[in-house]
Each structure stands twice: as C-alpha cells, then as structure tokens.
C-alpha cells in the first residue's frame, strides 16, 4: 500500500508487526504478547497522527491513489447500473460518469467525476477533469431524471474543470453556468456527496443540490491550495501549500462551519481507502436517509427550498448610515 509522507511511522510499524508475525509463524514461536504490545502501540500512533491531521494532510488523503472513486461507490451501492454516454452535441467525456442504477429498491440517476487508478486509466479519465461536454452530459442526465422522476445522486471528485484550449473553445464557462441555473429547475431530489476533491467551479458545475454531504477527509474550495499559493506567494509557492490550505479553510469541517454542508460522513482512521466497505455502508445510509426525507417534499416546495438554501449563503456587513 502506498503511504503519504506523514504516515511513514505508521507504515513502518505495520511492516514490523507483519514481519514479526511471519517470522513467528515460520519458527513456530509464541510471541503473541509482543505483537499485542506493538499493535497497541500502532493504534496509539494512528490515533496520534490521524486525529491531528492538518488541512494540507487531509487534502493529501482526499487525493490518495487508493481512495475509492465514483465507480467504486456505484458498484458497491447500486445494482443494475446502466451507464449513459455522450452530450448529444460533441462527444462523451470520460471524466464524468452518468448512469441509471437501483439503490436498495430505489431507481436513481448517478452522476460523478471519475479518476483513474493507473497511468493509462488516469489519462483515459483525464484525471477527473471535465470538458464542457462532460457538464453537458451531466445536464442531459439531470433533465432525463427530471422528466422521469428519478432522484439524483451526485458524487464529486475533481481537481477542477480542465484548463485547456479546446475546453475554452467549446465553452467551459457557459457549460458550468448553464448547469448552475438548470440544476435549480430540476424537480426531483438531488443529493450531493463530495467523496474526494471538490475543486472550484469544476466541482460546483455538477454540485447544486438539496442535501450536500462531505466525506470527513474530502476538500471543497474556490481554488486548490496549490493554485492559491501560486497566486499569492509567487516566489516559493511549493512551501506555502499548507499555509494556503489553512487560509482557504478547505476541509469538510470548515465547510460545515461556514454552513455550506449539511453533514460530514465519517471515515475510518487514516481515510476511506483503509476500510472502503465501511465507508460505502455509511455513504449508502446517508444517501438513503436524505432521499427518504426529500421524497416526501412536493416538487415546487423542493425547488423553493433549494433556492432558499443558496440564496442565504454569504457573509457581509451592512455599513451604518452616517
């Protein structure tokens, strides 16, 4: 398993324990008490390191190469998945997955950005960075769901909308803007879960909904810590990622504090990839709970509530008249 820089002591100890176990098995030695001690030490170390993670470390967990991606969730949560392709105008964006599926007896539409696991897959999925046709494919899905009364489940995991020449030629800004407006006209429940990275407009472009959840170690902000550092600290941005992550307040806990997110879905110690089954069960529970609540609301009221939710976001002061 790959590990991150700050996780090194944990992995060294894990390695030591497994080596010791192997050695003991081979030599038929009885060392269970030593292993017990080391395991207790490991648990302590894990708690110490993971409970004290700073924001930048959480961003790294959100990007962990072993972290579950959109299709992993769909596979684990749903049955009868039928993937739908294409925006009917230009092409099929592989960075975004749209499809019909059954979630514990409920027929829903899934939409989510998809990252790749290996070099080839990463390129195929364009690192989860959408082009305009990706946002338009998603919109096609939303409008289909609206017409046939299927609730929508959205999984967000993107390092941003793709910044490229063709993306601009095909109207990246227009595609995102249109989705923001149209998602407020979709008359079925929309549940959004940020499962990994929620980078700016690229994330928000499929991110409007009635309930917004974030996994404990996901991040969501107006810009990535790297992007922010590059703008603010031109001299040595690499040294400022931690500072930028703190300044931007990128974590799920921050977003919750700012009133953007409805609930945080807890992750196992060390991140979702440490126990994907457990995370999937929780995500399923949260989504189903939200759908049950939202399905009881009349469409007109649902839209009014969605609008009101976004209408009140913002912090400002009113200057007193002199």
């Amino acid at each position, binding site marked *: 398993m790959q590990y991150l820089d700050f996780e090194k002591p944990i992995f060294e100890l894990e390695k030591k324990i497994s080596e010791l176990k192997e050695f003991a098995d081979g030599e038929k030695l009885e060392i269970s008490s030593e292993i017990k001690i080391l395991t207790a030490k490991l648990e302590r170390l894990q708690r110490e390191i993971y409970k004290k993670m700073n924001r930048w470390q959480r961003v790294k967990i959100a990007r962990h190469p072993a972290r579950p991606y959109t299709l992993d969730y769909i596979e684990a949560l749903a049955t009868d998945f039928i993937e739908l392709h294409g925006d009917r105008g230009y092409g099929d964006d592989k960075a975004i997955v749209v499809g019909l599926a059954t979630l514990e007896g409920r027929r829903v539409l899934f939409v989510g950005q998809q990252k790749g696991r290996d070099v080839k897959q990463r390129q195929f999925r364009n690192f989860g960075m959408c082009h305009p046709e990706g946002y338009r494919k998603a919109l096609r899905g939303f409008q289909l769901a609206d017409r046939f009364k299927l609730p929508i489940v959205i999984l967000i995991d993107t390092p941003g909308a793709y*910044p490229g020449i063709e993306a*601009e030629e095909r109207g990246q800004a227009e595609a995102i*803007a249109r989705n*923001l407006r149209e998602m407020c006209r979709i008359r079925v429940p929309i549940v959004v879960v940020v499962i990994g990275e929620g980078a700016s407009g690229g994330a*928000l472009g499929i991110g*409007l909904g009635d309930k917004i959840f974030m996994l404990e170690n996901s991040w969501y902000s107006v810009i990535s810590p790297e992007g922010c550092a590059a703008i603010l600290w031109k001299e040595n941005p690499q040294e400022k990622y931690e500072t930028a992550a703190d300044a931007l307040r990128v974590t799920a806990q921050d977003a919750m504090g700012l009133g953007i997110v409805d609930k945080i879905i807890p992750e196992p110690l060390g991140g979702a990839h440490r126990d994907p089954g457990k995370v999937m069960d929780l995500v399923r529970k949260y989504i189903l709970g939200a759908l049950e609540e939202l399905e009881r609301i009349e469409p007109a009221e649902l839209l009014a509530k969605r609008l009101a939710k976004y209408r009140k*976001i913002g912090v400002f002061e009113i200057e007193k008249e002199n």
Partner: protein
Amino acid sequence: MELFKKNQNSQPDQRKKELPDGLWTKCNNCGEIIYIKELEKNFWVCHKCDFHFRILSSDYIGLILDEGKLDEYDGNLISADPLEFKDSKRYPDRVKGAIKNTGLKEAIVCGCGTIDTKPVSFAVMNFGFVGGSMGSVVGEKVARSIERSLEKRIPLIIISASGGARMQEGILSLMQMAKTSSLLALLYDQKIPYISVLTNPTTAGVMASYASLGDIIIAEPQALLGFAGQRVIKQTIGQDLPKGFQSSEFFLEHGFIDFICHRRDLKKQISSLLNYLKVQD
C-alpha cells in the same frame, strides 16, 4: 491574462493618475499618442485601433442610463472577513485599500435607472476593486439586482468586469456562483429579459455564472473572456496559446456571445434589444 496585460492600461483608478499633465496619453495597444480630451469624447476608445480603455462603473452609468442617473441600492453592503484570511496583507486591509484607491465600497454598483425611458435593474462591476472579484457582497448585490427585476418586473442589465470568484472568501465566494445563477432561473422562467455585457476582462467564476446566462450576451471588442487563466492553461498544455485566444472575437467565433459592440453604440443596442424583448405577463 499576462498576454493582455502588456497591451492594456492598468487599473482604471490609475487612469487619471498616470496622466499628470492630463493632456496626452498613449494607446497601450497601438502606441498612438492621443489627446485626452479626444479620447474622452470617443468613450475612451482609441480612434486609430478601436482599443477600448478600461473605464469606471460611473462611466458606464453615464454612458448607458438616461441622464447618467442611477438610483443606487445596497451601497452600504461591505465585505466581512469570514475566513480571517491573510496573505501578505490581511483581507480587511486589502478591502480598505481598495475602498481608498477607488472611492467605491465594493466591486459592483447596483440600482435602478432608465434606458431611453425604459426602466431597468442595472449592475456594473469595477475591475479596479480587488480585480472585480466576486465575494459575498458582489454575490449578494447581484442577487438583489435580480430580485429587483423580479419584483418590479423590469429587465436586468449587468456589465461585468471580473477576474472571478474572490479567493479570500473561499467556498463562500464559490457559492455566490450558485446563488446568482439559481435566482436567474426564476428570471428565466418568468420571461424577464436579462442582457449581459462583457467587458475586459470577464473570466473564471463570474464568466461561469451570471455573465454567461444572459438572454442576450454582448461583449466590447478585444476583451479578455474565458474560464481558465492563461497562465494555468499554458502550464497545463505546455505550449503557447494561439493569437486572439479568449478574446471577444474568439467568443463570437465559437458561438458564445451574440455580438461585439463598440462602446459608443452600447446604449443604442441595449435599448433596441429591450424594444424586442419585453417582460411577458
């Protein structure tokens, strides 16, 4: 943006400061030496190359609204510091500096006025105020401008000039995109016309929300328009950008604006459009 920076005048609030003698200036695009009075008469457009100098929100009010008169609303909304954001400066100090330099309270001025006697809800941005960036105040003022259109059932005109969402307010700025766009859904459904005017520059979070959602979208010539920053695109693709990339002309060519309009004709064109696009009962 760097490509364009070289060719253009800097912050609008510096426009007058750069001209201590106040008689002549140089077009940053073609190098023509222009008599300031002439430039002013020509709507701050170079008579030789049609380069549009960046102008202030007050100039647009004078240019477009009858008698240059805006009944301003929400001028008392000012930025807070919800993230306690600090880089080389504290965010509140950055805002205070902008207020001092521009004499404005925020990056947008909103209110009501008339165009050839037709009442409109009118909002105009100021690039000189923290890069015209959209934080909670800009988002709120745009939202209220849309609500005034809905309430009074009058058309909405927004003149944009912005580098995007304001970084210093983090995810709150991002969500202003959702806030403004979701209200535009109501305007859309109620068949109240919205004309979006794009000026140099309109990019990122503003371009990817209300600026792109006009029933009609007009741009001034040679404005920088787009989603991603040019430096980021260059870094991502590792090659130089084509000439004219992300300009008004590029946007027209690719089908994302209705037409390009010389500043002198803005009022006339908006007014004519409003004769066709009437609020529907």
